């Protein structure tokens, strides 16, 4: 059973979105996603200042097994990226919802994340009940 924090929002492609400040969210990949990928070894992140549209392939996480695109769940501007992941990509495996966050975005429309799945819907989506 993977961990699915109730306060976060989720996408079908296994990203999570969590509000950290007014209109600013952090984005990462779910516990389920990291478990499927296995040991992460490389992470490619967007740059601060990049503008993202929903569904943009904006990051890549690569495990020993496979490379996987990360799609932006939101519309907005990247304010910060998690530089620590370059040296310790395994943080994504060990703490996907904490120190393993990927990047932060200032939302064009702060209400937009309510359209994403909540924890229960995501649990259904990955077939864990």
């Amino acid at each position, binding site marked *: 059973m993977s961990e699915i924090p109730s306060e976060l929002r989720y996408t079908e492609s296994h990203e999570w979105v969590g509000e950290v400040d007014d209109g600013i969210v952090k984005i990462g990949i779910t516990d389920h996603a990291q478990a499927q990928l*296995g*040991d992460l*070894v*490389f992470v*490619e992140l967007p740059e601060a200042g990049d503008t993202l549209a929903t569904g943009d392939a904006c990051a*890549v996480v*690569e495990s*020993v*097994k*496979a*490379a996987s695109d990360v799609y932006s769940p939101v519309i907005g501007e990247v304010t910060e990226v998690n530089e620590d992941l370059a040296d310790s990509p*395994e943080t994504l*495996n060990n703490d996907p919802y904490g120190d393993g966050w990927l990047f932060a975005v200032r939302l064009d429309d702060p209400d937009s994340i309510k359209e994403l799945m909540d924890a229960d819907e995501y649990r259904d989506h990955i077939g864990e009940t």
Partner: protein
Amino acid sequence: MSRKTPLYDSHVAAGGRMVDFAGWQMPINYGSQVEEHNRVRNSAGMFDVSHMTVVDIRGTGARDFLRRLLANDVARIEQPGRALYSCMLNEKGGILDDLITYFLAEDSYRTVVNAATREADLDWMNRQAREFDVELTEREDLAMIAVQGPRAREVVAGIIDAPETLSLKPFQAVVHGEYFVARTGYTGEDGFEVLLPGGQASLFWNQLLEAEISPCGLAARDTLRLEAGLNLYGQDMDTTTTPAESNLGWTVAMEPDDRNFIGREALEAEKSGGVSRKLVGLVLDSRGIPRTGCKVVCEAGEGEVTSGTFSPTIGKPIALARVPAGCGETVQVEIRKQRPDARVVRPPFVRMGKIQPGIAGD
């Protein structure tokens, strides 16, 4: 419906993530595949390889049969327990499989072939056997556990109380009661491969667990063999490639020149015409992992990656690639729309826990 080895329940109990592999339910990993990999390099790990196909070959024609069947020459191993690595070729010199053959006694040999090629191999071997006084018996009653890493031999010798196994040389095996212990493996580390009756496999497995030998899955087995520069059949070589094109020319015994093994004529023609492709190692000093099928570009033309991974020991991406014979020291690999440079190196990348000279780079 895929088959289960006698250790299936042990894998599930250890948290193994089971996948279908060549018709068998096998553990791909238990936890982190990189940790499993490192355990083998630094301490010891064990692999259930009971899915591999064991064939005993007996009869007065066994020696002549194998000298016809295999590109390497079993005349090189005429002492009990000696082992030989060889390709089995078709008439065109294409590789049907790679296998290990043990000399057990006069007129008695044992081969271990790949699970993925089991049916084709058995069919081919039985067909070739018709002309010889020989009997082939598949040993489905046996399980096989590979224990690999610097601690492996001592632990195994202790558990089965077989100090004589510690004096085995590489590529040598000995029978100890119901155990057949061979100093062979597929990881680039020292260790044993142990064949034993299937009914005893889980007991032995549990004894190894108690001795802190980590269970390791197919994923770690793949990164270990790749670092060791060992080919995987079906990926780095198949019927469309010859031994010379697969970095295995050294396993072909062209002497004595009157030994008429299957594929000999084709290899002689290849030799006089020149080999156009070769299998090399690649190391990338950048990010992004080359995967099977990625295009490789060099001045002499194009090739492709046959196996690629992130090397946990080196901390860089590595690969095996089949490239034009005239390929130089640097190539470019196409990875997701980018073309990073790769250094062309001679495998192995890692052996006996050590990164080989010239591999690590800066």
